[in-house]
């Protein structure tokens, strides 16, 4: 029983990482219908931004929460700028081209960031500083840390905040309008370019936050850390119903749980295969993802 609970917690912890990254994926997708493959790399940049920020700050603030907060904010801003820059330079020129063109550009940007990062940061892993001291807890034999809880809580909170933002605020609604019909949105007086820029800024800041929170938990960062996480997060987003914010979190958690239980109780050698298999089965039963709304198409 303890082992089961522990695995449940392991799964939630892993899943909340996917969820956190999937949120940004789903946001950008929701607006641009773009699988932003560079998202995973922005997540990596976020972690490195945090790494260098903490090196710079070291000793200037007294550590603890304020220092952690400053590092987090600095990285989020840095990545928001990077996100906007990517959108402006790479995606905007091809926005009206086919979706596949956009996708290829995204893959290109992802490759570019990864390879530049390998050159500038070095290919070997770096230790991410423990900017928030870790504490361990035990409950009925189940062990967990404050950081695991932090990641999970952040994912859920962000999900709620983003959902409210998209549903309730004017800007949020404008985002949805741009997503569905950019030309019509312009007719409504919506500045499509700035909405898209904003979406990227927001998505990238989320990715940065994810990068830092995750690196607290798994304090080894390297230029390719976004590759696998990015793909998994994308899978999670699709599983939950791409474009749906609660879906991203649900998808992430399910993916994390699936991987964990397969590895814990089945065969860890076949972990990825079985986890993907489960996903495929879910998608075959629910073709628009768990919380996705099927594209309404009136004939």
């Amino acid at each position, binding site marked *: 029983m303890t*082992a089961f609970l*522990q*695995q449940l917690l*392991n*799964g939630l*912890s*892993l899943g909340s*990482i996917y969820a956190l990254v999937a949120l940004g994926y789903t946001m950008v997708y929701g607006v641009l219908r773009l699988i932003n493959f560079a998202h995973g790399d922005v997540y990596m940049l976020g972690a490195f931004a945090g790494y260098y920020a903490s090196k710079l700050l070291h000793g200037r603030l007294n550590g603890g929460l304020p220092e952690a907060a400053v590092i987090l904010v600095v990285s989020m801003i840095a990545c928001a700028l990077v996100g906007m820059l990517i959108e402006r330079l790479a995606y905007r020129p091809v926005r009206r081209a086919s979706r596949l063109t956009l996708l290829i550009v995204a893959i290109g940007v992802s490759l570019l960031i990864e*390879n530049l990062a*390998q050159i500038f940061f*070095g*290919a*070997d*892993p*770096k*230790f991410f500083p423990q900017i928030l001291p870790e504490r*361990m807890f035990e409950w009925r034999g189940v*062990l967990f*840390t404050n950081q695991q809880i932090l990641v999970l809580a952040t994912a859920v909170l962000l999900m709620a905040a983003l959902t409210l933002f998209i549903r309730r605020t004017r800007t949020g609604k404008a985002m949805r309008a741009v997503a569905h019909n950019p030309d019509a949105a312009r007719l409504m007086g919506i500045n499509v370019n700035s909405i898209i820029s904003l979406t990227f800024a927001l998505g990238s800041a989320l990715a940065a936050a994810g990068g830092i929170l*995750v690196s607290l938990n*798994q*304090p*080894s960062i*390297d230029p*390719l*850390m976004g*590759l*696998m*996480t990015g793909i998994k997060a994308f899978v999670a987003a699709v599983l939950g119903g791409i474009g749906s914010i609660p879906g991203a979190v649900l998808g992430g958690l399910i993916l994390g749980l699936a*991987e*964990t*239980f*397969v*590895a*814990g*109780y089945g065969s*860890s*050698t076949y*972990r*990825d295969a079985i986890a993907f298999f489960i996903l495929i089965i879910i998608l075959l039963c629910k073709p628009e993802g768990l919380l996705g709304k099927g594209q309404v198409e009136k004939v």
Partner: protein
Amino acid sequence: GKKGPESNDILIGEFGALTGSIASFGQSTHKGVALAVEEVNAGGGVLGRKIRLITEDDQGKPEEALTAVTKLISKDRVSALIGEFASSNSLAAAPFAQQSRIPMVSHGSTNPKVTQIGDYIFRVCFIDPFQGEVMAKFARNTLKLDRVAILRDIKSDYSVGLADYFTKSFTALGGTVVADESYSAGDKDFNAQLTALKGKTPAAIFVPGYYTEVGLIARQARKLGVHAILLGGDGWDSDKLWEIGGEALNGSYFSNHYSVDNPSPVIQGFVEQFKARYDGEKPDALAALGYDAAKVLIDAIRRAGSDDPKAIRDSLATTQGFAGITGIISLNENRDAVKSAVVLEVKDGKFVYKETVDP
């Protein structure tokens, strides 16, 4: 061809993963190789000629390795090759080297099959069966353990090889392998496997992976209350191991080619030189192997007295008692390095010498 064979340099080709997912290892070995070549050139070269190292990137992909080697051999006309670190890439490239009769010295490919490709293929590292046996003997005879679990990197031939040979030797010595779990290089979450292992209460866990993952594995294991001794192979050797794993690693053991604490002036000289050349970075096992591979090759060229590939091959085959950083290297009739291994204990960021195991 401006600087083709007309120029008087001796051409050596190197292929490795400078980019891609295993670039951290490829870059490390490249630093070792480059350092060796620079050092020789600074000392006047060999046979009175300079050595020119041509390095090609293979992105860590087998077919790219083959392309890189084809290019090095047919376009650049190198006299000998150094590479690759990953056995899969060596296995992809070696047949062409063999067919073209260009000697190839691998620094880190531990799969026994690599040198079986043909009589032009050599290596300066020990092979999986030996290292697996070293740790099995150490666990069984020195630490007197009888219940050990394995956590292998399923994507790495090196890790899989070590795990298999460890299992074989350890059970032959009367121990039991209580669990065999796996992960894939690049993973960052090992909680599921560790929780599963915890239930089997092993006294030690053999993790024959790379430092890139082992640090995190150690951390996560301790957080889950897994206090088994961690054991590993030369893939552990790196500064980064302690940086990432920290105290969670105290009391772990791994086999390696050499101990940095070894006061031997050769080794200390190498460490100093490496640090001076690369901004204070400490050489890891891969860098040392790259360095040795280059040195062994250059030594063979010197002894051959020519840069003719056939002559180099023949003199490589007679390498005996070469004092490298990673040990005394003698190449046997299978063109594999015969050298002893050391077992090191991780202690507060230092790798402390425990014992030497001879082949």
